[in-house]
C-alpha cells in the first residue's frame, strides 16, 4: 500500500498537491489536461522530483527521501527506456543486477522474460535494430524481471500505432496480473481507461484527485472531467 500524505510539489510556476492511498494489485489510470502535472506526479512518486511538503509511505514506512532505485516501483518513461549501446539482453539484465554480473538462474530469468514478450530471437540485438513495438516489449521484459510491486507508465507507447498500442497494453495487463503488481499509467485516451483501469486519478487545477472507480466515473463524469473528455 502506497500512501501519498499531503503530497506537495512546487516548481517555479507550477504546483500540485495530492493526498491518496494506492492499493496493491490495482490498475490506476492518471488522466487530465496537458500540463496539469500527470508526468510530474509520477516523477515525484518515483523520486526524481523532491517534494516541497508531505510524505510518501510504503507499507507504513517513510520513503520520501529514498533513492529511486530503493523504492518499490519501476517506471517506463516517454522515451529512453533502453540504453542504445547495450544489447536487449543486457538491458533486461540490468533490471536484476546493476553490475550485470548475472548468476546462472538470473540469466535464465532474463531469457524467460524475453521469451515471455516474444523477443527470444532478438536477445543480442541493440535497441536501434528493433522496431518500435519490439523496443517496448524489451522495456517490458525488464519491468518483468524487476518484479516491483508498483509499475508506473508515463505514456511509453504514445509513439505506437493504435493496434500496436492496444497490443502493448494487453501485454502490460497480463504481465501485471502475473506478477501481482499495481499499475499507475498516464493516458490521454478514454478507451484505454475503460480497457484496463480499475480506478482513475484525475489531475487538474493543481490537484491530483483521489482515485475513483473507473467505470462509474467514466459513465458519469463530474463537470471538470466532462470538460476534459469533451
Amino acid at each position, binding site marked *: 500500500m502506497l500512501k501519498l500524505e499531503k503530497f506537495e510539489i512546487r516548481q517555479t510556476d507550477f504546483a500540485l498537491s495530492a493526498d491518496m492511498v494506492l492499493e496493491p494489485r490495482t490498475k490506476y489510470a492518471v488522466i487530465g489536461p496537458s500540463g496539469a502535472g500527470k508526468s510530474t506526479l509520477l516523477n515525484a512518486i518515483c523520486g*526524481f522530483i523532491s517534494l516541497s511538503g508531505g510524505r510518501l509511505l510504503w507499507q507504513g514506512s517513510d520513503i520520501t527521501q529514498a533513492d529511486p532505485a530503493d523504492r518499490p516501483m519501476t517506471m517506463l518513461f516517454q522515451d529512453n527506456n533502453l540504453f542504445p549501446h547495450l544489447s536487449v539482453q543486457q538491458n533486461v539484465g540490468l533490471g536484476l543486477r546493476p553490475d550485470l554480473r548475472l548468476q546462472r538462474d538470473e540469466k535464465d530469468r532474463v531469457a524467460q522474460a524475453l521469451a515471455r514478450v516474444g523477443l527470444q530471437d532478438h536477445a543480442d540485438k541493440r535497441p536501434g535494430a528493433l522496431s518500435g513495438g519490439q523496443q517496448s516489449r524489451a522495456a517490458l521484459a525488464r519491468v518483468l524481471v524487476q518484479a516491483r510491486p508498483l509499475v508506473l507508465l508515463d505514456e511509453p507507447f504514445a509513439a505506437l500505432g493504435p493496434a500496436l498500442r492496444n497490443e502493448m497494453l494487453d501485454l502490460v495487463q497480463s504481465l501485471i496480473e502475473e506478477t501481482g503488481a499495481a499499475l499507475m499509467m498516464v493516458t490521454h485516451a478514454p478507451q484505454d481507461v475503460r480497457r484496463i483501469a480499475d480506478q482513475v486519478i484525475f489531475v487538474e487545477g493543481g490537484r491530483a484527485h483521489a482515485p475513483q472507480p473507473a467505470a462509474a466515473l467514466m459513465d458519469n463524469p463530474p463537470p471538470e472531467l466532462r470538460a476534459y473528455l469533451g
Partner: protein
Amino acid sequence: MARRVVAISPRGGIAAAALVLLLILAALGAVMSRAEVGAGLSPSDWAALRFTVVQAVLSAVISTICAVPVARALARRRFFGRGVLVTLLGAPFILPVIVAVIGLLTVFGRAGWFNLALGAVGLPPVSIYGLHGVVLAHVFFNLPLATRLLLQGWQTLPSERFRLAAQLRLTPFAAFRAIEWPMLRQVLPGVAALIFVICLTSFAVALTLGGGPRATTVELAIYQAFQFDFDLGRAARLSLAQLVLAGGAALIALWVIPPVSLGSGLDRPVQRWERGGTARALDTICITLAAGFLLLPLSAILWRGTWGLAAVPPVVWKAAGQSIFVGCISVVVLGVLALPMAGWIASSRRGGVEAIGLLGLSASPLMIGTGWFILIHPVAAPATLALPVTALVNALMALPFALRIMVPRLRDTVQDYGRLSATLGLRGWPLWRWVLLPRVRAQAGFAAGLTAALSMGDLGVIALFADQDRVTLPLQMYRLMGAYQMEAAAGAALILLTLALGAFWICDKGGRWHAEA
C-alpha cells in the same frame, strides 16, 4: 525545486579538481615562497599583457569562426579520404612549435611557396611577420582542433533531427537555425575559451612570427623572469596574471553556454537529406581551402623529414621510446583526473568547475615546473621523478581539452538516461561501466589520443627535470638543431609527427566505432 537526476557521485570529481588546484597553487606558492616581496607589474609587463590578450582573442575568434563552415562541410559530406583528413586535423595541434613554424614558413615565409606563387604572377611578396603572422600560426594550430570539437558537436545531433528537417522541407538557413545553431551555441563558447587560453601561453610562435619584441607575450616575460633575471616575484605575479586572465575567460565562456540538452536519438548512423549544388560546391570549397591550409605546411615537414630520416642517429629512437612511455602514463593520469571531473560537471547544472580544468592549461609550464622543482628538490632528486612529473603536467595541460570534449556528451547522457539509470540502481562503477563509459567512448578516445599526442610533443617541463637518460623526442630534436644537425632534426620531427599521429589515430579510432556502426 531541485530535480534529482542522477547518481554520479561528485566525490571523485571534487577530489580530482582539488588535486588539479593543489598542483597549480602549490607550485605558485612554492615560487612565491622563494621570491622577494615586490609590487605590481612594470609598464613593459602591461604591454605584454595587452599584446597577449589581443592576439589570443583574435586567434580564438578567427579559429572558431573559420571552423564552423569546415566542420559543417565535413559533417555533411562523405568522400574518399575523409577519415584520413579528420585524423590529420589533429596534426598541427600536436606539433612541436619549432617544427610547425618551419613548416609554416616553407609555405608562407619570405622564400616560401606562397610568395613564389605570388612572384610568378607578378605580385609583390607578402610578409608573414607581424600580428597577422602570429594569428595565422595560431589559426593553423587551433583551427583543426576547433573543427574536430565542432564536428563532435555535429555528431551528437541525432539523425532524427535531420530527418525531421528534410520532412519539413526546411530551407538550409531554417534548418541551420533550428538544429545546428542551438548545438553551436553550446559548443562555440567553450571552444573559443579553450583556444584563447592556449594562445595565452604562446611564446616562441608569437615571438618568431610576431617579428620582434612588439610581440612579447606574458609567457616570454615569465621565461625572462625565471631564466634570465631570476626574479621569482615577478615570475609569480605574471603567472598569476595569466591564471586570472584564463580563469576569467573560462568563466565568461561557461556563463554564456546555455544549459540545454540536444535531445537523444537511437544511435542511428547520421545520414542527411540535403541536396543542392550550391551547398555542395560551398562545402567543397571550405574543405579544400582548409585542407590546403593545413596540409601544405604538413607536407613541407614530411618532405623535409623524409630526406632527414637517413641522418637520424639511434639515440633518437631511444628518445622516441621515452616519449611513447610519457604519452601512455599521461593518458592514464588524464583518465583518472578527467573522467570523474567530467562526470561531476555533467551532472551539475552549471559548468563552473570546468574553469578549474582550464587553469591547468593556462598555468605557465615553466611556473609549474619550477614550483614543483622547488618542492621536490629537498626530498628527492628531481631527475628521478622526471617522467612521472612530465606525465602529470601533460595530463594537466590536456585536461581542459578532455573536459571540453567529454562534458557535453556526458551531460546529454545524464539528461537522457539519468532517470533510467536511477530506477535501475546504477551508481558508482556499474554506472560508469555500463552507461557513462560506453556513451562517452568516442569522446574519451579522442581525448586520450589528443593527450598522448600532446605529451609526446611536449617540451615544457621535461626540459627542467630531464637528465641524460630521460630525454624525450622533442628535446632530442632540439639537441640535434643545437648541434647544427638540421637534417637529422627534420627526420626526428617526422618521427615525432608520425608517432603522435599514430597514437592519436589509435585512440581516436578505438573510440569512434559508432560513427559508422
